[in-house]
């Protein structure tokens, strides 16, 4: 009798734990309806509406595959958390940036060189992904889908009203800012409280002044940032003279709102900001121009990079179905649908209609006179955005020296494993570039 009671104690406690296990087990196995389920996470929070539409359209036209597209807030953190949990989706939609480099380096992505849709992608964008490989890889691991362009957005109505010209050199640009201020208007309204926005002017200026593979050069020990980034740093800082008071108090949303309401005439940011701006003021007449950071107008390039690209996860068990989803997304009609909503630049060859606010950049896009974002090569844990914010907040005389010195020392530390792997690779492949 007593024995039983004792046993009951243990059974009760063990039962609670077992119940926990069973309950969790149940929630894992979802309802099966004979369809292959393809799960996709994409990181463009702004494009959540587009992907809801595309998801619906796909599921209506496909009987054998069920597509689920998730567009969570702070998606890259969620992707990483899920990778930490070893809970992999089938397809991820991310930017062509350091996250891609890391996922690829960790062996998470599938080689999709046998995917036929790749033939229709512009080579320039495929090359950008190649440059992102920390250690050169065989194969293709992403389908570039949409690119964005970053430069300076401007309020066309105000420009027309005062008859201002589009600047093509740095001096003209600063002179324009002076003119705008002289009219009692605000040239820029920055949202530097969100540190990542500090990278927008930085990138746009850097593509004009620095080699696009500067990070690889540094990794190979052939260059340093102190020499190459000084001008970029100084010119980024120069923009602060034309910004509102205390730009570090306001967020990206605040800055978009201010620009939308005509409180600032220009906004050095990417085309991705346009939907946010238009959500505040749908009637605003926006155009853009390429950041003229150099005195030599002919070296000024458009800052453009893979804003959204799709990768299939190596763990995915449904490669064929995943390709079918990619085929669907790459249909001209669906690409155009995305471009219209997001004011993006297509990575696919073809006759697509571009958004009017890209007019000022059109020739650069068509001539392929563009360069990838520098920050796509920065490791996220190095937090270069916050370093730039720190630098812009630093009023001391040697701020630029401090910043550049820190950039060089931290770079080596954060990229130590990459540099070592690269050295090993170079030793194994002495003839590689």
């Amino acid at each position, binding site marked *: 009798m*007593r024995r039983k*009671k*004792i046993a*009951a*104690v243990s059974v009760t*406690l063990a039962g*609670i*734990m077992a119940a*926990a*296990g069973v*309950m*969790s*087990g149940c*929630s*894992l196995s979802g309802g099966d309806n004979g369809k292959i389920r393809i799960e996709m*996470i994409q990181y463009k*929070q702004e494009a959540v509406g587009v992907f809801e539409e595309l998801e619906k359209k796909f599921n209506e036209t496909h009987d054998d595959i069920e597509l689920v597209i998730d567009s*969570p*807030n*702070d998606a890259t*953190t*969620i*992707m990483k*958390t*899920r990778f*930490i*949990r*070893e*809970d992999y989706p089938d397809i991820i939609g991310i930017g062509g940036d350091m996250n891609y480099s890391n996922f690829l380096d960790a062996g998470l992505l599938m080689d999709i060189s046998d995917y036929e849709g790749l033939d229709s992608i512009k080579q320039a964008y495929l090359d950008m992904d190649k440059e992102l490989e920390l250690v050169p890889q065989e194969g293709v691991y992403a389908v570039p889908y949409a690119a964005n362009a970053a430069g300076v957005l401007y309020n066309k109505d105000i420009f027309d009203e005062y008859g201002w010209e589009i600047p093509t050199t740095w001096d003209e640009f600063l002179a324009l800012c002076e003119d705008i201020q002289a009219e009692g208007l605000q040239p820029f309204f920055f949202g530097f409280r969100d540190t990542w926005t500090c990278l927008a002017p930085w990138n746009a200026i850097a593509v004009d002044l620095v080699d696009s593979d500067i990070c690889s050069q540094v990794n190979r020990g052939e260059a340093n940032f102190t020499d190459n980034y000084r001008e970029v740093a100084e010119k980024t800082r120069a923009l602060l003279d034309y910004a509102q008071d205390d730009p570090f108090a306001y967020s990206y*949303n*605040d800055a*978009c*709102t201010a620009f939308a309401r005509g409180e600032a005439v220009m906004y050095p940011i990417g085309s991705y900001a346009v939907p*946010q701006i238009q*959500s*505040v003021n749908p009637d605003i007449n926006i155009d853009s121009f390429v950041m003229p950071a150099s005195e030599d107008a002919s070296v000024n390039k458009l800052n453009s990079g893979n804003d959204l690209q799709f990768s299939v996860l190596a763990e995915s068990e449904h490669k064929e179905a995943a390709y079918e989803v990619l085929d669907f997304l790459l249909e001209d009609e669906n690409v155009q649908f995305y471009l219209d909503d997001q004011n993006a630049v297509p990575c696919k060859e073809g006759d697509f209609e571009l958004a009017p606010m890209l007019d000022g950049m059109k020739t650069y896009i068509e001539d392929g006179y563009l360069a990838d974002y520098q920050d796509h090569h920065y490791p996220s844990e190095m937090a270069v955005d916050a370093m730039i914010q720190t630098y812009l907040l630093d009023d001391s005389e040697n701020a630029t020296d401090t910043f550049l010195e820190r950039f060089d020392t931290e770079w080596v530390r954060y990229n130590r494993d990459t540099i070592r792997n690269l050295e090993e690779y170079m030793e194994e492949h002495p003839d590689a570039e």
Partner: protein
Amino acid sequence: MNTKGNKQTARTNWPITILLIIGCLTIFFPLYMTIIIAFKQPSEMTNDIAGALAFPSSWSFSNFAQAMEVTDFWNSLANSVLITVIAIVLAVIIHSLAGYAIGRSMAHSKVYSFIYLYIVSGMFVPFAILMMPVVKLTAQMGLANRVGVILLYTVFYMPMNLLLYSGYLKNIPLALEEAARVDGATTWKTYWSIIFPVMKPMHATVAVLTALGTWNDVMTPLVILSGTDVNTLPLAQLNFQTQFGTNYNLAFASYLLALIPILIFYLVCQKQILNGVVNGAVK
């Protein structure tokens, strides 16, 4: 430092009463701002002080309806309630048993003294060090869900609650159980019929402390539940922050919605909560 009022003969100390009432403004001002901003429309947001402090032009609940939709309010609320209630029940059952078994055995057993120290010293383990391994562990066990969060709370609050229960038991004489034992009751039965009811004040304390800790916790659900579509109330605020954009009115309606359940609970159970907190801290 005015302690004159402690004399039994003293009358009401009006200056201090008035100062304290004025001091309440520091509590009410942020809450007042939350309420009026939650009811205003974006067009009513002005930059002058009088305008910012003024009542909204109409008391419309449209912001709340929209905020509920954006943050999936009812689901988040249900999850928060579910997690908190089960965590409390498990804490009261499991931790009190632990307090009893370990607390009663400590005096004559080195092993139990060691177990006691082992668990209680878990109090010093900051969540930051457990965070990353726990994410991996729960995922591998299929516990990256509400059950996982509840289990983690049961473990994280164990050190503190064990300390509280075993401390409380020191004041409950062994003779109470001896009598029952002589009557032939088993230890298990004695526990539930005599000891468990006697510890009622401590159950209240444990329940209050566990509830306040789990209800408002952000970090555990953040790392365990993010990306699973399951939100608790605070997690929903964090996850939907960017969807509010610069519509602060919508955001504040959502904040207010997140604060209201616990405020109501506090108003109803104020006395028990205050007593519970004091008991927990002082014991």
